[in-house]
């Protein structure tokens, strides 16, 4: 009986505030936009009993999803989000791997400090860290001032309000998510394996490619998903650092909801985004399970 109480409290909470809301999104994505409160139709009228339910059911259709395929704004935004998320993941890997590798080679006294320094930005406000780049990347910003003073460029570069700024923002904010799993994979690496490889005639470089990299694979995969998945639905970074040409689906959903007040289309955008993300999420979970089994 006590066990039942223990299970049911968090279970009911999640059902009511996670699963049910999602079903509502699904339902509204099948409704039509209307000039009413709430701004969609049909609404379920329970007072009419079964007839009301069937009337409501027959009012649902996939019109909004057809609309998503017809207006090229949406599929362009999905593609552009995919491209930006993929590119940022690759960049984060290129920046993050050397850091994780360096951390794993550091002495035992240094490692806790380095670890803390990677985690510290993660606790700092995400919004503030994105905002910090605005003053650096703007036309009269500090990066342009620096580059012009050194004499590398004569004219200020336009970086803020472009996709480049979005890449920098995503890599910067999600870097700890890339570094930590790679570091924990590399930390477990048995040093004697590298010595064995070198004794058997590998150069240090070959030993890196043949021993270190394959053993870090799980960490690389985990880190990549941890950057890719949130980057795909990102809203804050493109709206603060990106320009009017930066199309990302998180931003489209936000505008559809808040500016256009088109709830059914916003819901349909959300449903499609989730369908796209299910693939990487399932792959990520498989990778985690594999790792857990390997760890046992």
């Amino acid at each position: 009986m006590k066990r039942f109480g223990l299970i049911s409290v968090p279970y009911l909470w999640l059902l009511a505030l996670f699963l049910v809301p999602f079903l509502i999104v699904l339902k509204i994505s099948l409704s039509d936009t209307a000039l009413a409160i709430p701004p969609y139709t049909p609404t379920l009228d329970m007072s009419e009993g079964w007839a009301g339910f069937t009337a409501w059911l027959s009012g649902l259709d996939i019109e909004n999803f057809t609309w998503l395929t017809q207006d090229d704004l949406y599929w362009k935004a999905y593609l552009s989000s995919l491209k930006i998320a993929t590119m940022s993941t690759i960049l984060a890997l290129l920046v993050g791997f050397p850091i994780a590798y360096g951390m794993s080679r550091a002495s035992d006294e240094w490692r806790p400090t380095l670890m803390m320094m990677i985690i510290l930005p993660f606790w700092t406000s995400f919004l503030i860290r994105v905002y910090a780049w605005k003053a650096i990347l703007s036309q009269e910003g500090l990066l342009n001032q620096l580059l012009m003073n050194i004499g590398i460029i004569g004219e200020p570069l336009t970086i803020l309000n472009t996709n480049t700024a979005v890449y920098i923002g995503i890599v910067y904010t999600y870097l700890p998510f890339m570094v930590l799993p790679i570091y924990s994979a590399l930390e477990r690496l048995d040093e004697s394996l590298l010595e064995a490889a070198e004794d058997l005639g590998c150069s240090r470089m070959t030993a890196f490619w043949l021993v270190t990299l394959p053993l870090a694979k799980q960490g690389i995969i985990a880190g990549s998903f941890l950057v890719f998945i949130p980057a795909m639905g990102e809203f804050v970074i493109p709206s603060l650092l990106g320009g009017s040409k930066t199309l990302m689906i998180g931003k489209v959903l936000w505008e559809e909801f808040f500016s256009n007040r088109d709830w059914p289309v916003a819901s349909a955008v959300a449903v499609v985004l989730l369908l796209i993300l299910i693939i990487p999420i399932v792959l990520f979970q498989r990778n985690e399970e594999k790792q857990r089994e390997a760890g046992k």
Partner: protein
Amino acid sequence: MRRLSWFNTVSLTLGFAFLYIPMLILIVYSFNGGKLVTVWAGFSTKWYGELFRNEAFLDAAWVTLKVAVMSSSVATVLGTMAAYVMVRAGRFHGRTLFSGMIYAPLVMPEVITGLSLLLLFIAIGLDRGVLTIVLAHTTFSMCYVSVVVSSRLVTFDQSLEEAALDLGCTGFEAFRLVTLPIIAPAVISGWLLAFTLSLDDLVIASFTSGPSSTTLPIKIFSAVRLGVSPEINALSTIMITLVAVGVIGASLTSKRAIAKRAKDEQEAT
């Protein structure tokens, strides 16, 4: 023997410079006398004064703090229960759905979580305000808490709890006297994580807040959307300092605890 190659040293230096320089610049320019954030005009603390006279920011900070304390506390209780269920309850009907609902919010895009909760609140006719933000924050942060706590529960020696039960404890007493003290560090870090997530959240709060319940991130976002402002730099500096003191303090405490335990073990043998 591990040794840093020049490549390791360079990548660590550049990597940490990349992570920290933007924040340092933000801090330095919060003490700038001029209105422009990119041109240095002498040292001044006037933006801190302006910030503390800005009622709208103070109100928003108060709302944010209230929401964070309430949501992280409820989330810690619910998340610890959920972790217990995941690790100890064994098989039960709907377990797959349960673990799915624990993990899904961790990877769900914030815009979708926010949208779905808002549509729920509207459907049941709940007015948007502090309560709705607390409900929303509790829901996603309890999942983080349960992940943190269950990773500690997995390594916990169950025979300790069984011994307490054999010695006449009730189930709840065994939990309170034996299990809780051992998993306490994980519960505390779960609470801290939930607290920070709530302080930090912009997207979900924007969907679920009402006109009378603006949180600090919403305020900051609307202020910086169009440009940079020295007041926000001052606010950021205060927030960064608080977090840095907290994180460094916590890591020093845990370092000392580990050193003490090692010493105790040495003395015992």
